[in-house]
């Protein structure tokens, strides 16, 4: 393994062993971190971790220096814990790194490393690890540092401290109700068999009707009770949603059946009643599909750290961020997030605001300048004086409710619109039938009247949206587009304007494009430059590092780096300098002002221009949208890429640069007040306000950022280029709903014919209702399935 032209994969994490190649017991490792995890697992007899999957480990972050001293603070620990009783404590960690069965195996055997851990359970879908430990033997700090060591750094942020984001108990109500409804449905159906087969007399002799009545009680008063409550609320608000005809149907079914049983005139429709509630609940359960590892309601607290270093009488101590006041002096180290607005006191600040404001280049700040919360310091530690408490900071104020206006025409689902007319029509028909029969044959009048109300029960109608849109939700989530709820689907169908952020949304912060200008490098020169670049953590330098051809890293001596400016060192006996034109003290060529220049032994060799490029394959997205929607670009960055964006977004698009988070919010407000339905696509904290205000807010998320501001939908960054297809599919699914509505109405009309002519027997009701529901469900699910296959091809 001398010249590594052959790429070896790390035994632990599967990364390419490029920079280092460490051989241990015949196995290759990409870095000492991975080797350390391997040795740790091996020493504890845990190395079957590697047998479950190939290279299961998590790549180690080489530059991370973690400080867990805040976990010595008992108050913070108690706020983090789920519960503590005597010396038993329980903690739930979010570990986004969980990805395979090896993770599961290792994390559930974590007590091999720390005997103080009494129980550890993984929830794979929600990517959570719940740990119970003995406070006498171990403590939270030990456990967290153990997790860091084995590569599963838990997400511990300010949001974890507040009680409302702590684990809510999963909603089990719907399951209980489903169980009860299913049980009664099955049993009543069984006991109704004699009647289906024409043995009414025998059924009556055995008092089967009374048993059915008792069985039906929990269906009406427990499983289906929510529909009555909702219907009552809706009547009082005069909105007449779909629950009104549902409740009307249920009440009629129940009362008429009771009358028949107790008067001895028949067996009633208890079977239909139980079946009806059971199907409705299945629909509800199917619709409430949740993505357990995603959170659509995040606030800024999930982005900020728990603690920061505070100067208390000359000593630096870890202090809870939420208790920091104006005037406090804090220290921010390399790669740490600035917790609140502050004035720089000391140190060389290079702040990466890309996630906060959308500026793609780190900003240099000098003593006395204001630094804003959310930025990330790159380089040495800085000291600053706090200007205001965290909830008063410039960015966090975006979350204040007073900043928002109500969205116009809030949530009028098609189904609510339909049900208003539906309720009215049914009551009218029932009354007409009643009047008719009172004149013709009064004996049948009651029968016909109630039969109309029963048969018009909109079971099929009520199942159309849960199953059709529920399936759309599932189909899209399997393709990396996660929508909050079926209501969001209807809002997406209404959008007419698209607002998009640039940095991190259209462009990809990780895939930087590099263009080199200057003399062609020799193999040795390129090897030297690569070795120099390896020393730095600056994102642009890292990009140049991976741009250069693979080669062995040479020894570097006298390495010096001025953060954000440049670096110099002796490599292979040559003096190399890389950095900004200012750092090299030269006048840059036109268009290369932000380039990184390279100087070897006093000769300027060339320069690297690093730019974030639009995502690969994003062109068809805007090609499709150009003619259909009003497109607006809102970027926090300067306009240096205007021509590139213009080309991408088309002549008609509005391009706005240098937008503050509040400008973005105001723009969306303006759109809404002009009766547009804007769809906002963004990624960072700076888009948070606009995302929340817009009709539909979609957040782009990737491995690099686990934080997603509150939104209506989340899309994986590599899937963004297919968003036009997803939205086209969602719009098409509206027609599926119309089709299912039509089918439901046809069945209802057929039922009405039987009802109005007083020919509706329990067996017809028992067949018609499930049959119509089944048709609607099958049509809704299969048509969306076929549409998805046609429309969502990824090419």
């Amino acid at each position, binding site marked *: 393994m001398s010249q590594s032209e052959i790429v070896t994969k790390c035994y632990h994490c599967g990364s390419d062993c490029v920079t280092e190649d460490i051989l241990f017991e*015949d196995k290759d490792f990409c870095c000492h971190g991975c080797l350390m995890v391997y040795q740790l697992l091996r020493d504890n*007899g*845990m*190395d*079957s971790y590697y*047998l*479950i999957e190939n290279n299961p480990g998590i790549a180690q972050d080489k530059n991370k220096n973690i400080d867990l001293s805040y976990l010595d603070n008992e108050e913070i620990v108690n706020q983090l814990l789920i519960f503590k009783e005597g010396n038993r404590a329980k903690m739930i960690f979010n570990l986004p790194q969980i990805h395979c*069965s*090896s993770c*599961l*195996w290792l994390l*559930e055997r974590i007590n091999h490393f720390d005997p103080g851990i009494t129980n550890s359970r*993984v*929830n*794979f*879908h*929600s990517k959570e690890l719940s740990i119970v430990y003995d406070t006498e033997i171990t403590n939270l700090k030990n456990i967290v540092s153990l997790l860091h060591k084995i590569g599963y750094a838990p997400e511990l942020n300010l949001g974890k401290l507040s009680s409302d984001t702590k684990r809510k108990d*999963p909603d*089990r109500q719907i*399951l*209980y109700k489903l*169980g*009860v409804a299913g*049980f009664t449905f*099955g*049993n009543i159906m*069984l*006991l109704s068999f004699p009647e289906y087969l024409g043995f009414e007399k*025998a059924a009556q*002799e*055995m008092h*089967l009707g009374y*048993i059915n009545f008792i069985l039906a009680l929990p269906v009406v008063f427990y499983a289906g009770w929510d529909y009555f409550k909702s219907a009552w609320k809706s009547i009082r608000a005069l909105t007449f949603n779909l629950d009104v005809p549902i409740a009307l149907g249920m009440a009629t079914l129940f009362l008429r059946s009771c009358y028949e049983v107790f008067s001895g005139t028949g067996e009633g429709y208890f079977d239909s009643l139980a079946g009806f509630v059971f199907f409705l609940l299945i629909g509800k359960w199917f619709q409430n599909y949740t993505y357990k590892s995603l959170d659509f309601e995040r606030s800024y607290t999930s982005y900020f750290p728990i603690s920061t270093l505070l100067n208390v009488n000359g000593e630096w101590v870890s202090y809870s961020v939420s208790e920091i006041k104006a005037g406090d002096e804090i220290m921010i180290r390399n790669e740490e997030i600035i917790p609140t607005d502050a004035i720089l006191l000391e140190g060389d600040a290079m702040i990466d605001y890309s996630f906060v404001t959308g500026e793609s280049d780190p900003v240099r700040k000098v003593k006395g300048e204001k630094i804003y919360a959310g930025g990330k310091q790159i380089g040495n530690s800085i000291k600053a004086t706090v200007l205001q408490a965290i909830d008063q900071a410039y960015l966090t104020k975006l979350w204040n409710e007073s900043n928002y206006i109500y969205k116009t025409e809030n949530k009028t689902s098609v189904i609510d619109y339909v049900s208003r007319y539906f309720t009215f029509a049914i009551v009218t028909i029932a009354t007409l039938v009643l009047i008719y029969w009172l004149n013709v044959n009064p004996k049948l009048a009651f029968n016909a009247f109630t039969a109309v109300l029963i048969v018009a029960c909109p079971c099929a109608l009520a199942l159309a949206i849960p199953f059709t849109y529920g399936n759309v939700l599932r189909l899209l989530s399997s393709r990396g587009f996660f929508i909050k709820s079926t209501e969001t689907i209807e809002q997406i169908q209404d959008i007419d304007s698209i607002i998009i952020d640039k940095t991190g949304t259209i462009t990809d912060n990780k895939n930087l494009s590099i263009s080199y200008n200057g003399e062609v490098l020799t193999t040795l020169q390129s090897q030297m430059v690569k070795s120099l670049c390896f020393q730095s953590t600056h994102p642009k330098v890292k990009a140049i590092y991976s741009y250069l051809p693979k080669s062995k890293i040479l020894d570097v001596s006298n390495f010096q780096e001025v953060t954000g400016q440049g670096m110099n060192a002796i490599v292979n006996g040559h003096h190399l300098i890389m950095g900004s034109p200012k750092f090299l003290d030269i006048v840059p060529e036109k268009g290369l002002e932000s380039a990184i220049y390279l100087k070897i032994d006093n000769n300027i060799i060339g320069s690297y221009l690093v730019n974030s490029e639009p995502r690969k394959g994003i062109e068809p997205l805007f090609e499709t949208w150009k003619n259909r929607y009003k497109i607006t670009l809102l970027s926090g960055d300067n306009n240096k890429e205007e021509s590139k964006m213009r080309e991408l977004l088309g002549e008609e698009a509005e391009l706005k640069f240098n937008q503050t988070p509040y400008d973005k919010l105001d723009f969306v407000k303006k759109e809404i007040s002009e009766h547009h339905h804007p769809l906002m696509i963004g990624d960072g904290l700076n888009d948070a306000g606009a995302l929340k205000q817009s009709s539909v807010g979609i957040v782009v998320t990737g491995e690099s950022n686990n934080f997603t501001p509150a939104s209506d939908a989340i899309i994986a960054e590599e899937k963004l280029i297919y968003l036009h297809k997803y939205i086209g599919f969602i719009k098409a699914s509206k027609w599926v709903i119309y089709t299912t509505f039509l089918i439901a109405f046809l069945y209802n009309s057929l039922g009405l014919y039987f009802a109005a002519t007083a020919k509706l027997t329990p067996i017809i009701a028992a067949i018609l209702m499930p049959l119509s529901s089944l048709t609607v469900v099958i049509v809704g699910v299969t048509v969306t399935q076929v549409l998805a296959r046609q429309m969502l091809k990824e090419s």
Partner: protein
Amino acid sequence: MNIIFYLIIISLVVAISFLAAFIWAIRSGQYDDDYTPSMRILVEDDMIDTNIEKQTNTNDVKN
């Protein structure tokens, strides 16, 4: 005819006991996480013993 009456009661008792079992299963949290157990069953404790054998096998292949 009476025998059918008894049968109905017995069948209801059986059905109710199933319902009770279902409710118990929900209460004990079996439905809270319906995915992880399917993975857990594939990775068992005794893998530690069998792994030495497997490891030598894979090494043979490598060489």
